């Protein structure tokens, strides 16, 4: 470690030589003067429609439901149609625990996903309309494994938690002493085009990604979003 302190001192000294060595207050002032960068053009006047349309563009599945009973019914339908089974795994989130799972005949296990689990359910802290992303903060209520190891990742989002810009992914309440270990901005199922530019989903993480927006007019918002998304169908290639 002494060697490393030596390397640190040398590198820091070299950096200082090439820096302006300004007063921190002047640096802060200069940074503030640069201002904010522009965000992406909005696709629809309604933030929720923009969010769901962008989820669809990201090769996710987007649904809108009126309430939590509707959310559970949507999960039940999705799981039954894909797997003919009722098992899902959910983090120890009070909002997930309070869902009426039995109404859809679902059998949730609360905890961390194991590698063989097919479906996991998360409750997003926030969602970003600009990019069709959901934001998860790691913690006991939201293990990171749950968004990575299951083949299907289902995410619930409350309408009030959908924000316009990417910058809103950071919660202003995350103070120095209260920072999440891991803040995930997830914008689609795991994908790759590493094999001769062929797009394949489920490269390492989930093969399918379902986002369920809980809003009073949820079904209507989802229908409008599908119409908006149909206008721009993009080819895809990624690595």
């Amino acid at each position, binding site marked *: 470690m002494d060697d*490393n302190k030596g*390397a*640190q001192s040398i*590198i*820091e000294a*070299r*950096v200082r*030589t*090439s*820096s*302006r060595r300004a007063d921190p207050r002047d*640096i802060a002032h200069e*940074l503030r003067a*640069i*201002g*904010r*960068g*522009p*965000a*992406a*053009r909005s696709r629809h006047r309604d933030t929720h429609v923009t969010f769901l349309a*962008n989820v669809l563009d*990201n090769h996710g599945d987007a649904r809108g439901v009126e309430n939590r009973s509707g959310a559970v019914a949507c999960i039940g339908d999705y799981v039954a149609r894909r797997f003919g089974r009722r098992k899902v795994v959910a983090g120890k989130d009070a909002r997930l625990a309070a869902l009426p799972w039995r109404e859809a005949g679902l059998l949730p296990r609360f905890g961390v996903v194991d*590698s063989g689990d097919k479906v996991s359910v998360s409750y997003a802290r926030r969602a970003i309309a600009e*990019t069709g992303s959901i934001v998860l903060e*790691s*913690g*006991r209520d939201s293990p*990171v*494994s749950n968004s*990575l190891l299951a083949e299907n990742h289902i995410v619930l989002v409350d309408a009030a938690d959908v924000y316009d*810009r990417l910058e809103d992914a950071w919660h202003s309440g995350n103070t120095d002493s209260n*920072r999440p*270990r*891991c*803040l*995930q*901005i*997830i*914008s*689609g199922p*795991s*994908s*790759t*085009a*590493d*094999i*001769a530019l*062929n797009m*394949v989903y489920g*490269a*390492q*993480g*989930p093969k399918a990604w379902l986002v369920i927006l809980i809003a009073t007019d949820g079904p209507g918002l989802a229908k409008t979003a599908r119409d908006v998304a149909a206008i*721009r169908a*993009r*080819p895809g*290639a*990624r*690595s």
Partner: protein
Amino acid sequence: MKQTSATFLQNAHEAMLQPQRSVNRQQLGTMMPQLRDSGVASFGDFDALRSHVSEVRTHTLDHLDHYLDSYVKQATQNGNEVHFARDGDELNRLVSDICQRHEARKIVKGKSMVTEETALNDHLMAEGFQVTETDLGEYILQEAGETPSHIVGPALHKPEAEIRDLFLDRHDLGDRELGDAAALVAEARGLLRQRFLDADVGIIGANALIAESGYSLLVTNEGNGDLCANLPPVLIVCTTLERLLPRFEDAMDLLRLLARSATGQPISCYSTLYSGPRRDGEEDGPLETHIILLDNRRTDILASDYREMLHCVRCGACLNHCPVYVAAGGHAYGWVYPGPMGSILTPLLTSLEASHDLPNACTACGRCEEVCPANIALPDLLRDLRQEEFLTQLTPRRWRLGMRAHAWLLTTPGLYRALTTVAVRAMTWLARGRGSLHRLPFAKGWSTARDCPAPESATTFMHQYNSLRKSRHGR
């Protein structure tokens, strides 16, 4: 990674003799610019975003001492051990020391150009560790014993059939035939999943470091970086000083630029910020986290006229748009970073002596600068390196004499006009009305593979211009 940049021309010649790989490169050079254009068009005022990020990065480098100090304090407060490495050997030793301290055997790695730069895999494997690259492209190359050809899609030079043959040879497949790309991906997914679960240490890179909070940002589409960062009990982030950005919002601006420029996506599938080790009550995540900040001549670049190159976000857009890269492929460049950005970074991070052909691998078409999300004047930097190459006498003596003669001729207009008049007449006579010349005196190398169009008139441009002006304006 053994550097072969000194034989760029030979490397490029050999690459162009591989027809199937040439087809792959042509596809990449056609498809990726289209995807980028589509992603940029859907954004809105992309130029305003580029200018904004460029301003922030200039500000950050101007005050790098302040932001580095802030980052180290915040990252340490978050529970990380922060290390510094002056060069590749120091980084490799730091990583192997951490692995040995934990009695680790199995290591999983996310795609990291920094660790390619330091040849970390070779070092760790020589020390007896089992290292698995987990980005699908990198995994394919590791199995094939090859090096990346592209900084975003490292195995895009390999046709699907080659990858199938590789898996059939290397994996225990039983009756499975791996008929298409989806089957190949599923095969790799199954194998890599177990490696993630068994790993003792995870190693990742970082696309940005946030000075105000000590977070590091990692962007992937596969999610392999997140698996490396969350499943093993020890996490090591290998990164460099110029990844620093002041605030969270600056990192979000970077995300807006990066994915659109790289693949045309509005954002990559997984953009994850890490602050440190597992918190109380968490049921997963690493128990110990290390961040290694590598210099490897970056402080030299910071102090030089090439400082602008530290703005590079490693999106690969300049590669996808470069006619030389598309024709010759990434391996021709002979080191970690190919294409226009590599032709600048390689001489700066290794030596101009070992790579002085690279700044000449340029048609001066300017497409790289047009699409660079960091607004780097790549053609200007390439020209400056060519100037250095000339001044340090790395070019052949005959070439230098020719350049000096040319420079002198350009400053002697009367003689220049007289000689060009003779040359145009001679070329017109040699073409004898055929429209092109198969051979040119003193330019055998150039005319071996192409014809030179013959002048359309037996007079020079200036002669025609003056005649036209006289006929129109009477003077």
